[in-house]
């Protein structure tokens, strides 16, 4: 198993109702598989998973990426700073 930390920001955080979450996932899970799992575990986020941006250890990550051990994963909408 792989113990990871999830962080939620902006609209994603509002929808899931929490800022962060720690959970255990199977090793070698990909970002795509994580998104599917989140869509199942948190139905409020299912729609958001289509356009969410995801980072692994503070770098943008894409569907095929395998989640490393003890990763810090963040989920958020496209940025709107400035």
């Amino acid at each position, binding site marked *: 198993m792989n113990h990871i930390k999830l*962080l939620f920001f902006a609209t994603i955080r509002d929808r899931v109702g929490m800022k962060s979450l720690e959970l255990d996932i199977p090793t070698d899970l990909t970002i795509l598989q994580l998104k599917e799992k989140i869509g199942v575990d948190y139905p409020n986020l299912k729609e958001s998973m289509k356009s969410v941006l995801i980072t692994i250890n503070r770098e943008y990550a894409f569907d095929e990426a395998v989640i490393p051990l003890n990763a810090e994963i963040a989920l958020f909408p496209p*940025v709107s700073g*400035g």
Partner: protein
Amino acid sequence: MTDTFPTIYSITEDEIDLNDLLAKITLTSTGAAAIFTGMVRGITSRGAAHETEYLEYESYVPMAEAKMKQVADEIREKWAVVEGIAIVQRIGKLYPKTPTVLIACTAAHRDTGVFDAARYGIDRLKEIVPVWKKEVGPGGQEWVEGDYIPKPGE
């Protein structure tokens, strides 16, 4: 170390002090600075015209600061003449007329691309630096939607 080119990048809840930031990126060889600041608009006319009471900014701070550093690195790669760079994003509850973001680049002379460098900096910040804002106005509150999808490696 006086001639090392200074790079300042930060997410802050404090007021943005232009005088202080400019002084920090001015070297003995510096003759020109191009500075961009963004402010909260109380009244917006373009697109869906509306009024804003305040903006509430949040950030994924450690990643945002790392991405600001990346923006600065990209600027130096494109404009080797740039001497100092400051990139600051203020977060929290910010009211109309308040400066929210600053990008400043210095160089020996003004015809070196230093204006383009500052322009590039604010454009990139709005693409890849994880900061979001919620707009609060007479009609309620709403997250401002970005539209840039970073590419692998960004």
